[in-house]
């Protein structure tokens, strides 16, 4: 039994999506001349500004390409579904984003992405463009705390990219943008659960088997198995398990401020996200933490997977203004 999708041809899905995105958001995005899988903000990159280039596989929309625009990312390299883009579009994105002050690559920490973006960095070096890299590693379920740099990047991307994009928009130099990006990543914590599989447009078969009545805890955003499988539990218990883990990692003090994202992995509707958010807000209040910003919705998805993740960014005086900084992207706007 094939999964039901509104597509034309599985192999063409990413390119056709991109055409649709460019048609809908031509005021904000364009494709650099001659490029097939890179997009650049129409009014983002400018002389003397660090160019922020993000990228990754498709199927996570609005992550990644939806976060390109003034105040956030300058350009994006677009891969196949759940597949890192090759070096070529990353190079094209970087060239388009380059304002002479260097380029910062930011993407989730996956073996494939690292290999491809590293090849892109080498190619850029030959062009005389300095490209630094900050990997996002916010998924606390994906490796123990002492191996933070082995963790995956997931929905926390939204806040982490946003902080870096704001720093770049404020014309900070490359060293400083890089430092703030690392700082943002270090203070961002995510964990998710999956309740059903997604399916690739090419195969239209569930990516994995999840028996009814079970959920996958610590699931990645590509349907990679998580930490463990367990019985599906009530929303409050799920929120509690995640918040216990996040609060423990975060080590915040009463009175600290946070930004929160309750994210749908795809088909989990707003009703369920707000039920989760209600508990998250209670737990943060109990911990004496003030919610400075709350996002609830599908921000980092896995096609039509059911499930949700909770992200908390532990704000400080440096991060707070960056999170508040306005941005105007195709699929995300603030301020």
């Amino acid at each position, binding site marked *: 039994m094939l999964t039901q999708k509104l597509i034309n041809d599985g*192999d063409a899905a990413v390119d056709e999506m991109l055409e649709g995105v460019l048609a809908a958001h031509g005021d904000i995005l364009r494709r650099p001349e001659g490029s097939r899988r890179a997009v650049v903000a129409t009014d983002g990159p400018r002389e003397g500004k660090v160019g922020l280039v993000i990228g990754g*596989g498709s199927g996570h929309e609005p992550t990644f390409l939806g976060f390109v625009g003034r105040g956030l990312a300058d350009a994006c390299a677009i*891969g*196949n*579904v*759940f*597949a*890192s*883009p*090759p*070096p*070529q579009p990353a190079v094209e994105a970087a060239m388009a984003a380059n304002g002479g002050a260097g380029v910062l690559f930011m993407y989730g920490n*996956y*073996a*494939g992405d690292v*290999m*491809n973006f590293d*090849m892109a960095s080498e190619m850029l070096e030959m062009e005389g463009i300095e490209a630094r890299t900050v990997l996002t590693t916010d998924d606390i379920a*994906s*490796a123990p705390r002492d191996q933070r740099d*082995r963790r*995956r990047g997931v929905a926390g991307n939204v806040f982490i990219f946003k902080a870096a994009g704001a720093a770049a928009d404020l014309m900070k130099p490359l060293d400083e943008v890089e430092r703030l990006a690392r700082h943002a990543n270090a203070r961002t914590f995510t964990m998710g659960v999956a309740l059903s*599989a997604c399916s*690739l447009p*090419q*195969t239209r*078969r*569930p*990516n*994995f088997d999840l028996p009814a009545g079970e959920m996958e805890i610590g699931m*990645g955003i*590509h*349907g*990679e*198995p998580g930490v*463990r499988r367990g019985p599906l539990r009530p929303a409050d218990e799920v929120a509690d398990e995640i918040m216990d883990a996040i609060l423990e990692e975060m080590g915040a003090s009463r009175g600290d401020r946070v930004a929160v994202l309750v994210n749908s992995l795809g088909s989990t509707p707003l009703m369920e996200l707000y039920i989760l958010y209600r508990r998250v807000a209670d737990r943060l209040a109990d911990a004496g933490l003030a919610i400075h910003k709350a996002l609830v919705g599908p921000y980092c998805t896995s096609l039509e997977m059911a499930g949700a993740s909770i992200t908390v960014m532990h704000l400080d005086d440096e991060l707070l203004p960056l999170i508040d900084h306005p941005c105007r992207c195709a699929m995300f706007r603030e301020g």
Partner: protein
Amino acid sequence: MTTEFSTSDLDHLFDALVTRMEAERDALCRLDGVIGDADHGVAMLQGMSAARDAVRATNGTLQDKLNAAAKGFLNAVGASSGPLYATGFMRAAKAAGPRQAMPRKDTPLLIAAMAEGIAHRGKAMPGQKTMLDAWAPAAEAAGGDGPLTDRLDRVAAAARKGAEATAGMVASLGRAARLGERSLGHPDPGAVSAAMIVEEMARAFRG
């Protein structure tokens, strides 16, 4: 049967690789679904199709064609397989050299070169449950002596055995590494596809 492996033999090898990946796409995706993100079959088919197209579009030496395969594969795929196979093909291109044909008895070197490229790019160690666990033993077998067909048989068998052995490994690289013990009991999709590719190469080199 000539004793030379020519550019037109290379064209046919890539045809065979595409046919094989077409047949195995869904099975490889299923394997990847168990410990990864279920796209490995799609990536390998897309990559090999683009490589085949690039090889056919190139009128040049074995080296030219294999370099074209590398670029075609990489640009179509990205992912983990893209850089790994692109680097593998580039090393094979170098090993084949700027010739229209090479002695069949030297073709096992191409397999060893592929393995080197993959090891160089991915920095994996044998035993980490990656495609290298198929490529590395294949490369080792390729260095052996005896008649070509025997050597190629041993190469293909080594790759297959290596791939099978990944089921008993705990992943410590790539997507599956986050699974820890949960990856035990499931073969690595990249190693399984590698064994298929080695098998097709061995068949083509044999003539």
